[in-house]
């Protein structure tokens, strides 16, 4: 797969503060990449640098294998922080400016307005819009030139649950078309639902990168329950492949080591004469993984 974006040892300092610290990242074509991190971890700064609006202190980045330029930016649809439009102009007129800058005709404006649900309000001035509408217009503007790459910085900020669900669906639809998406967010649930890969930033440094599925599988847990919980408890304690065992309301929640599966556990319990009334595998949440990653990095820095 071709690399869409390559970042090498990127550094951005604001005086003494290291906003981005020796960051290296590669994003392949067609990948939906989540950039995670607490507030102030350098997500937006990183995006600002690779979009050429923030000057890097040192390091390199390239788009589509070439140094960044206004030509490469025309192939990227991006929103950074808050939506930015001319408040006295309508959505249609604002999008017309965007398409002029991108060097496209205005034929996709109506389509995009429809896609983000602003068709009816498209002639009202931008300043009359709610935060959610502004955010949707920003996403519409990013989609306007049908670019191969999308960069979305907190795209569901300020949206209501319905709006959040719509935007997620929009992102997944776009991803299905084979586009590359870079999504910065501190909402983990969002990244878990739409991203295939993710990286975690903390104080400007990358502390983790990997695929979302792997991260979730590594945290897989199993729930079991039987009629007699005490017997089950004793039996479970005899099963040697359990890393962690928690008692929950009417069931046990356990994490197996890599050597055995839920099949082995079930077979073991049947041998012991215990019939399960409940057996379920649970993928971990990215939230657990994320907190664990942050915790581990804390341990390392101490």
């Amino acid at each position: 797969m071709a690399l869409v974006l390559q970042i090498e040892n990127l550094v951005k300092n604001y005086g003494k503060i290291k906003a981005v610290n020796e960051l290296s990242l590669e994003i392949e074509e067609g990948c939906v990449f989540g950039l995670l991190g607490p507030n102030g971890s350098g997500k937006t700064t990183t995006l600002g640098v690779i979009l050429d609006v923030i000057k890097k202190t040192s390091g390199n980045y390239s788009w589509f294998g070439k140094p960044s330029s206004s030509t490469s930016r025309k192939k990227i649809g991006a929103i950074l922080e808050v939506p930015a439009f001319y408040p006295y102009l309508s959505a249609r007129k604002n999008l017309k400016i965007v398409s002029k800058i991108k060097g496209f005709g205005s034929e996709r404006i109506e389509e995009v307005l429809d896609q983000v649900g602003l068709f009816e309000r498209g002639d009202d001035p931008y300043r009359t819009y709610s935060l959610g509408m502004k955010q949707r217009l920003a996403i519409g503007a990013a989609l306007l030139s049908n670019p191969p790459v999308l960069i979305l910085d907190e795209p569901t900020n300020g949206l209501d649950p319905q709006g959040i669900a719509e935007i997620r669906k929009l992102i997944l639809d776009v991803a299905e078309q084979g586009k590359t998406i870079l999504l910065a967010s501190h909402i983990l649930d969002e990244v878990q639902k739409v991203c295939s890969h993710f990286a975690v930033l903390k104080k400007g440094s990358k502390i983790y990168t990997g695929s979302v599925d792997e991260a979730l599988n590594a945290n897989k847990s199993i729930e079991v329950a039987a009629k007699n919980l005490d017997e089950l408890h004793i039996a479970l304690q005899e099963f040697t492949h359990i890393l962690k065992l928690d008692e929950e309301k009417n069931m046990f929640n356990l994490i197996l080591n890599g050597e055995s599966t839920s099949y082995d556990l079930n077979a073991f319990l049947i041998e012991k004469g215990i019939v399960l009334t409940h057996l379920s595998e649970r993928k971990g949440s990215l939230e657990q993984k994320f907190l664990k990653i942050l915790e581990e990095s804390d341990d390392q820095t101490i």
Partner: protein
Amino acid sequence: MIRLFEIEWLKLKNYKVFWILIGMYFLGLIIVLSSGMFLMQFLKNKGAEFQGIDPTIIPLYDFPDVWQNMTYIATFFKIILAFIVIISVTNEISYRTMRQNVIDGLSKWEFLKSKFVLILVLSAIATLFLFIEGIITGLIYSTVRYPGFIFSDLEFLAAYFLEVVTFLSLALLLSILLKRAGFAIVLIFMYTLIFEPILTINMLHNPWIKDYVSWMAPFFPIRALNNLIQVPFQRYVFMEIQDFIAWRDVLIVIVWLAIYQLSIFKVLDKRDI
């Protein structure tokens, strides 16, 4: 170039403040430039006379004198055009649209170029307007109508164009530096009309210092602009005036223009937007 102007036009054509300022500029100029003879009549009725001369026979609109008279008066109105530039640029900063424009695929330089195109177009329209206004009022009032006279001294229009382009470039620089419309407007207003005039008048006429510093005065940015087109009206009371454009003044202004342009590029190049 045309694409950049189209982008700028899309931004401005539905912006009310832009049209109000443009309206103020042209309406103000039309009223002032067209009413010279009425003013003279008014002065006469009040019993004024200039060293025994009846004000109504002063040939304000005679070709080719009309060009210097008009361009001189018009230079006072250039501050309104500067407001347009300041508001257009500081808006882009406070709306964060300059940043979004760059993200969308404009380079920083293209963004600056689009603003410089705005400056050139405003200056060209203002100059063209003066030409038309001069021809019309001249044809109404002038006693001389030979084409040779009508079209002589047009260098005053060229000087006016240079003066406006330079002044608007200063406005662009201040907008980029200060980022806020109110701040930039107050500063350019105070500096142009109060600070620098008081300073240079002191340098030229204050008996304590003039021998040492008077040579510096023509190099000050606003003074240099004002020197391009000199006050023409003393000629009607038989005083000597400079009724031409001096190359030295043109050169000083061009150097300032270059300084403004370079500084604009430098400031924006270093800055995160």
